[in-house]
């Protein structure tokens, strides 16, 4: 028998998917000198190898029953319209083998147009927008595609070093289909002059991987008289299949 992508049957035996490891430099190091808060918050002992078993190759499949239409449109969640430049953020979630990841939850959160988060611990002296919570969610379609309507977030200062400003960004959280595929990342905007000074963005050492975090402006998907469009494809770990033996009685 051949390996089937969904059926997971390998040589007549039950099979488990196995998710490929990221290449070195693809993800940032947990200990990164330029980002001060990593110093006391990264494991110092060597990591222990965890072979992928059932718990790691399954994962929460969330949201199908709780997502509403307005969850993906951050500009219509309140009685009034938020301030700022309306944008469309769209793209495809796929795995490193090029397969779309359907039916997966994406959560986003971001600052408002003035660079202010709606959050109790946020002290940046920029205005709160009563018409913008900055939180959205949606589920990818059968082709792994997603689409949000939101507001261009502003840059904001942070205390990492003198005159530190985060480039404009949108936080994204993805589950994929397995615990192994879980990803929290940030989407940046093309041409942002702050990118070159940002230790969080620059913590990724592989240049080609790093630019995966920059969205692409799309005039084609920009809606006349209404909103600019940015395309942001997201790539999660891809999978092969391995043999699975049931417990002996």
């Amino acid at each position, binding site marked *: 028998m051949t390996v089937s992508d969904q059926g*997971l049957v390998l040589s007549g035996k039950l099979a*488990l998917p196995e998710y*490929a*490891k990221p290449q070195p430099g*693809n*993800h*940032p*190091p*947990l200990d990164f000198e330029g980002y001060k*808060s990593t*110093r*006391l*918050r*990264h*494991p110092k*002992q060597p990591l*222990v*190898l*965890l*072979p992928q*078993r*059932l*718990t*790691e190759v*399954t*994962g*929460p499949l969330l949201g199908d*029953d709780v997502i509403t239409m307005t969850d993906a449109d951050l500009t219509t969640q309140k009685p009034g319209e938020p301030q700022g430049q309306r944008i469309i953020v769209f793209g495809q979630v*796929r795995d*490193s*083998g090029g397969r779309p990841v359907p039916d997966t939850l994406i959560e986003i*959160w971001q600052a408002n147009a003035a660079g202010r988060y709606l*959050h109790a*611990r*946020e002290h940046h002296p920029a205005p709160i927008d009563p018409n913008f919570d900055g*939180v959205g969610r949606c589920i990818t379609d059968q082709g792994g595609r997603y689409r949000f309507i939101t507001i261009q977030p502003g840059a904001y200062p942070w205390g990492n070093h003198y005159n530190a400003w985060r480039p404009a960004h949108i*936080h994204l959280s993805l589950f994929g*289909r397995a*615990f192994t595929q*879980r*990803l*929290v*990342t*940030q989407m940046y905007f093309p041409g942002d002059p702050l990118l070159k000074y940002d230790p*969080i*963005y620059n913590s990724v050492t*592989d240049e080609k*991987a790093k630019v*995966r*975090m920059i969205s692409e402006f799309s005039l084609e998907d920009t809606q006349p008289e209404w909103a600019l469009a940015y395309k942001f494809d*997201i*790539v999660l*770990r*891809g999978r092969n299949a391995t*043999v*699975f*033996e*049931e*417990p*002996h009685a």
Partner: protein
Amino acid sequence: MSELLTPSQTVGPYFSMRLPWAGGPYVVPEGTEGAITIVGRLTDGAGDPIPDGLIETWQANPAGRFAHPDDPRGPVPWGDKAFRGFGRSETAHDGTFKIVTLKPGPVPDGAGGNQAPHIDVSVFSRGMLDRSVTRIYFSDEETANAADPVLAQVPAGRRATLLATPYDDGTATPGLYRFDIRMQGDQETVFFDM
């Protein structure tokens, strides 16, 4: 053909993902028959609480089955939506978190044996550029733990950091366990590379 992955970035300090399902920390509603509660504190290398952390848990049901189509024994029927197996708890100002769930059953190791009951955990926070992954085992599963292939890979002196232990906080909460997560220090929690 293998594409580069979208790199991980920190959740930052301002995540406020208001997940409506299962009430976040409540994998099962409080008061569910047989429910256990796991409480703990997330601390940094100075021993200080991490007040802006996010703890997520993923686990099998008490029969050792997953609510997922890739469980090769066949998926748990979707009628079991009441138990998705996923929990999420933000840490409080004192670094504490809480998950209310059911104790998972033993899970096949895929090579003919079983793994001891366990819960996979992701730890996120400001200052973490990627998540750290650990596992919760239970100190009252001594026999199963002794045969667990993952615990066997962990240096014996560090295994205790992976054990949730029965805990009495004075409130007489039934099925209360304690599981602290220490990012660094003498008792640094064991973290895994998947």
